[in-house]
C-alpha cells in the first residue's frame, strides 16, 4: 500500500499551485480522447468535473442515482458561495479567505489546499456568471454580497435562497452541453456499488441500473468519486433522503483510506424535530443570521409566548458570549451554545429542544419588503412546515447534522492513496479541517471540479497510461459477484421482522447520542459496543420485499444502510482515538473552563487516515502530520 504522501509542492504558499501546474505532465490534445474517466456523482463537484474533463477531450461517463443529473443534493444549498473578490471593499483578499478557512477549520486542514481553494474561488465566480447563473445584483448591475458565519467581511454571493440550485443548474448546463456533443455519457438512476481495482489501480466500477436491476461493469483509466457526504448516518439530517456513503465506503473497503470520519458538522439553524414520523430535518439557511437574532428566555421553564417576554428577560447568548461575531459565530460554536442553553433547561417549544431566531428588530429596521426579498422563500418554507408565521413569531430552530468534513483521504492532486481513484467535493476530506465555514462547500465542490481535478487527473493519466484490461478482467468478475452476493443476502430474509427504516432510525439515534454534538469516552465506547449488535440484527432481521430485477427502493435503501452501519463504527473509533476537541468534534473531556473546544496540538495536529484491514479487524491508523507555516496555531477566538 502506498505511503501517505500529501504531495504538497515546495515553495511559498502563494506560488505552490502555479508551480505545480507547470510541473504537471500534459497529454497532447489528440491523445486525450483515448483516455476514459468515470465520474461518479453529478453534484457541484461531479457535474463540473465531468463537463470540464469532457471539454478537454477525455471520454467521460458520469453516474448519479437520481433520475436526472440536475437533482443532485447540491441543489438544496440555500445560502451562498464564498469568493475573495473583495467587491465590498471591506478588506477581503485571497489571504483573508485562506486565513478564515484555516482558522474556521480549527487548524485541522492542510494550508496548501486551503490556499489554492481561496485562489480559485474568484475563477469560480467568473465561470458561473458566464454560464448565466442569475446571482443577486445591486441596482448598478454589479454582484451583491451577504455575510456568513466565521467571517467579518461580506464575501458570500447568492441567488435568492436558491444558490445551490442555481450553481448546480449552471454546472448541469455545462454537462448538458457535453452530453449533447456526445463527449459525456450520462447514466442517471445508476448506483455505484463497488470499485474495481486492477493491479493496485482504480480502473472501474460496478453499477446497478436502478430501473431494470441490471448489474453493469464500467472500465476506465481513472475514476473520480463526487458522491457527497454521509450525514445520513444520523438518519435525521438536512441531507436528501438518498444521500449515502456507499461509493466511498466501498472504495474504502477496496483500499482507499478514510480520513477524519469523526469530523461532522451540526448546523445551528434547522427546524426542530416535532415527532417520530419525521423523515428528515429542514435547514434554515445560515444567511438568516445576517438579520435574525438568536435568543432564549433567561429563566428556566419559561411558559410565556415569545412576544410576551420583555427584552430584559431574554438572553441573546451569542451576542453576549461572542460580541465581535455575535449571531455570525461559526457553526460548531453556535450549535454548542444552543445545546448548552437547552441543557440548562432554557430551551423553547414543546420539546424544549429549540431556541428562537427572531426577525422582529430586522423587520422594524428594514421593513417587510426587504426581508421578503432576502429570505421570502425560506420564510414560506418555514411556515408551510411548522404552520407558524415567522413574520409575526420568532422562528424556532435547533442544531441538526448537516455536513461531513471527513471523507476519503486525498493528496494535493485530489487522488486517494489508491492510484487512479480521485475524490472530489464533500466526499473527500480535504479543505475544511474540523469545521466548515458557511458557503465554503459550494466553493470547494466547484473548485475541485472546474479548476483542480481537470489539471491533476491529466498528470495521473499521462503517467499511468491506458488501462489494457477490459471488463472481462478477473477483478471485474470478482467485484460483480461480490455485489450480487450482497444484494442476494439483503433480499434473503423475507420472514424478517424489521424494515430498513427501523434500523436506520435506530442507527441514527445511537449515533446522535454516542457520537453527536458532544462526545465522551463513555458514549463512544457504548456506541462501539452496540453497533456490531445492531449490524448483526440488521443482517438477521431486515425485511426487504421484492426482487433485484425491478425498481426496488427498499433494496436501494437497505444497501445504503448496510454501509452506513459499517461507517458508523469507524466514526466512533476515530472519535474515540481523537481525545482532543476541535471544531465540530467536541470531546466533552477536553474543554476550556468556559466550555470552548480545547485542542491538543501536541498529540493531534494530524489527519487521521484509516485503512480498512478486513471485516472484523480493527482499522489501521495512518497519520499525516499538519504543518502551519502561515496561519500560526492559536486558540480560536470569536469573542
Amino acid at each position, binding site marked *: 500500500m502506498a505511503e501517505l504522501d500529501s504531495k504538497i509542492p515546495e515553495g511559498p504558499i502563494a506560488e505552490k499551485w502555479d508551480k505545480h501546474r507547470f510541473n504537471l505532465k500534459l497529454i497532447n490534445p489528440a491523445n486525450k480522447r483515448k483516455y476514459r474517466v468515470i465520474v461518479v456523482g453529478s453534484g457541484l463537484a461531479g457535474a463540473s468535473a465531468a463537463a*470540464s474533463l469532457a*471539454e478537454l477531450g477525455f471520454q467521460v461517463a458520469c453516474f448519479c442515482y*437520481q*433520475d*436526472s*443529473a*440536475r*437533482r443532485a*443534493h447540491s*441543489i*438544496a444549498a440555500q445560502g451562498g458561495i464564498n469568493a475573495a473578490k473583495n467587491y465590498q471593499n471591506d478588506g477581503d483578499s485571497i489571504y483573508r479567505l485562506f486565513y478564515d478557512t484555516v482558522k474556521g477549520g480549527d487548524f485541522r486542514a492542510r494550508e496548501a489546499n486551503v490556499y489554492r481553494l481561496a485562489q480559485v474561488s*474568484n*475563477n469560480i*465566480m*467568473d*465561470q*458561473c*456568471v*458566464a*454560464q*448565466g447563473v*442569475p*446571482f443577486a*445584483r*445591486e441596482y448598478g*448591475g454589479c*454582484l451583491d454580497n451577504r455575510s456568513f458565519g466565521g467571517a467579518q467581511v461580506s464575501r458570500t454571493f447568492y441567488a*435568492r435562497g*436558491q444558490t445551490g*440550485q*442555481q450553481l448546480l*443548474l449552471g454546472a*448541469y*448546463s*455545462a454537462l*448538458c452541453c457535453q452530453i*449533447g456533443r456526445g463527449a459525456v455519457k450520462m447514466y*442517471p438512476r445508476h448506483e455505484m456499488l463497488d470499485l474495481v481495482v486492477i493491479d493496485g489501480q482504480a480502473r472501474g466500477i460496478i453499477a446497478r441500473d436502478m*430501473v431494470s436491476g441490471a448489474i453493469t461493469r464500467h472500465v476506465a483509466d481513472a475514476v473520480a468519486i463526487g458522491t457527497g457526504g454521509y450525514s445520513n448516518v444520523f438518519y435525521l439530517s438536512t441531507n*436528501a*433522503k438518498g444521500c449515502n456513503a456507499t461509493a466511498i465506503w466501498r472504495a474504502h473497503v477496496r483500499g482507499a483510506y478514510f480520513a477524519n470520519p469523526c469530523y461532522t458538522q451540526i448546523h445551528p439553524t434547522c427546524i426542530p424535530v*416535532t*415527532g417520530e*414520523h419525521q*423523515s*428528515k430535518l*429542514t435547514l434554515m439557511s445560515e444567511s438568516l443570521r445576517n438579520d435574525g437574532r438568536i435568543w432564549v428566555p433567561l429563566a428556566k421553564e419559561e411558559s410565556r409566548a415569545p412576544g410576551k417576554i420583555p427584552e430584559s428577560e431574554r438572553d441573546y447568548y451569542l451576542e453576549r458570549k461572542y460580541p465581535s461575531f455575535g449571531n455570525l459565530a461559526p457553526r460548531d460554536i453556535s450549535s454548542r451554545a444552543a445545546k448548552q442553553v437547552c441543557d440548562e433547561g432554557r430551551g423553547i417549544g414543546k420539546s424544549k429542544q429549540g431556541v428562537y431566531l427572531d426577525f422582529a428588530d430586522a423587520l422594524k429596521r428594514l421593513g417587510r419588503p426587504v426581508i421578503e426579498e432576502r429570505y421570502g422563500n425560506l420564510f414560506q*418554507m418555514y411556515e*408551510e*412546515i411548522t*404552520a407558524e408565521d415567522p413574520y409575526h413569531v420568532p422562528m424556532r430552530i435547533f442544531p441538526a447534522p448537516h455536513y461531513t468534513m471527513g471523507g476519503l483521504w486525498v493528496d494535493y492532486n485530489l487522488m486517494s492513496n489508491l492510484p487512479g481513484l480521485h475524490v472530489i467535493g464533500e466526499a473527500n476530506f480535504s479543505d475544511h479541517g474540523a469545521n466548515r465555514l458557511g458557503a465554503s462547500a459550494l466553493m470547494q465542490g466547484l473548485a475541485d471540479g472546474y*479548476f483542480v481535478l*481537470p489539471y491533476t487527473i491529466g498528470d495521473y493519466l499521462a503517467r499511468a497510461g491506458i488501462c489494457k484490461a477490459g471488463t472481462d478482467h478477473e477483478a471485474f468478475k470478482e467485484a460483480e459477484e461480490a455485489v450480487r452476493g450482497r444484494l442476494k443476502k439483503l433480499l434473503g430474509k*423475507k420472514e424478517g421482522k424489521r424494515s430498513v*427504516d427501523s434500523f436506520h432510525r435506530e442507527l441514527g439515534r445511537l449515533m446522535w447520542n454516542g457520537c453527536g454534538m458532544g462526545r465522551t469516552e463513555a458514549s463512544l465506547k457504548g456506541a462501539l459496543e452496540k453497533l456490531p449488535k445492531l449490524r448483526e440484527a440488521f443482517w438477521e432481521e431486515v*425485511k426487504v*420485499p421484492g426482487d433485484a430485477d*425491478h*425498481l426496488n*427502493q427498499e433494496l436501494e435503501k437497505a444497501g445504503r444502510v448496510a454501509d452506513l452501519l459499517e461507517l458508523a463504527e469507524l466514526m466512533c473509533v476515530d472519535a474515540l482515538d481523537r481525545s482532543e476537541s476541535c471544531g465540530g468534534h467536541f470531546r466533552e473531556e477536553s474543554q476550556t473552563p468556559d466550555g470552548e473546544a480545547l485542542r491538543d496540538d501536541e498529540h493531534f495536529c494530524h489527519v487521521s487516515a484509516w485503512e480498512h484491514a478486513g471485516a472484523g479487524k480493527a482499522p489501521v491508523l495512518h497519520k499525516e502530520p499538519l504543518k502551519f507555516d502561515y496561519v500560526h496555531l492559536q486558540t480560536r477566538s470569536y469573542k
Partner: protein
Amino acid sequence: MNFTLRVWRQKDASDPGRMVDHRADGIIPDMSFLEMLDVVNQKLIEKGEEPIAFDHDCREGICGCCGAVVNGTAHGPLPATTLCQLYMRHFRDGDVITIEPWRAKAFPVLRDLCVDRGALDRIMYAGGYITVRTGSAAEANAIPIPKPIADRAMDAAACIGCGACVAACPNASPMLFLSAKVSQYALLPQGQPERELRVKKMVAVAEASGFGACSVHAECEGVCPKNIKLTFISKLNRELIRAHLKS
C-alpha cells in the same frame, strides 16, 4: 387522521397497472404527504407486500424529484407547492385520496408513481446552456446586469424541472419548462450569442420527444410549484419567431 388512498400500482413498464386501495391510518396533521406515504409503506412492508414506489430526494421542494397527481391535481391541492411540501393538515379526516403518476406519452411509467422524465433532460442536452469553456470566462463584474433583468432571469431559473406542467397540460406540452430555460438565457447578456440557435434546437427536440404542443390552456401555471408564469411561454413564442425571422 385516517384516509383511504386510491393509488396507481404498476410493477414495471410492461404491466398494465391498476388503482389499488390502501389504508392510511393514524396520520398526524404535521406529516408531509410523503411522510404519510412512508407510514403506509411501513405497514405494507410489515405485511410482506411491496411498498408504493415514488420518487423523492430533498423533501424540501427544490430537487424536483417528487410529484404525483393527487385528487386530479399535479402536486395536490395547494398552489405553488411540491408534493413533499404538502402537509396532511390540508386534508380532511376520512378523505379518499387518489394518487396517480404523471401521465404523458413522453413520461413512461417505470413503477407505481415513478415515471421516466428523461425527455426533459434531452431537451436540455439539445441547447439548455451557454457554451463557455471552463477557464475562459471574463471577470464576473465585467458585464453589469440591471437588477430587474437579473431578477426576471432568476424568476425563470427557479424552475425545478419536476414535470408537473406536462402532467397538468391536456396536450402534455412541456412549454412552461422549456420557456423558463429559454427565457433565462434570452434575458441575460451572456445568452445572446446562441440565442436563436438555442430556442430552435430545444423546441425541435421537444417536438420529437412525444410531447404535445401548447394551446394555452394555462393549466401548467396553476400547478407550477415555483410560480413560473405563463408570460414566459409568450416570451418563448416571440423568441421562436425572432429566431426564424433572423435566419
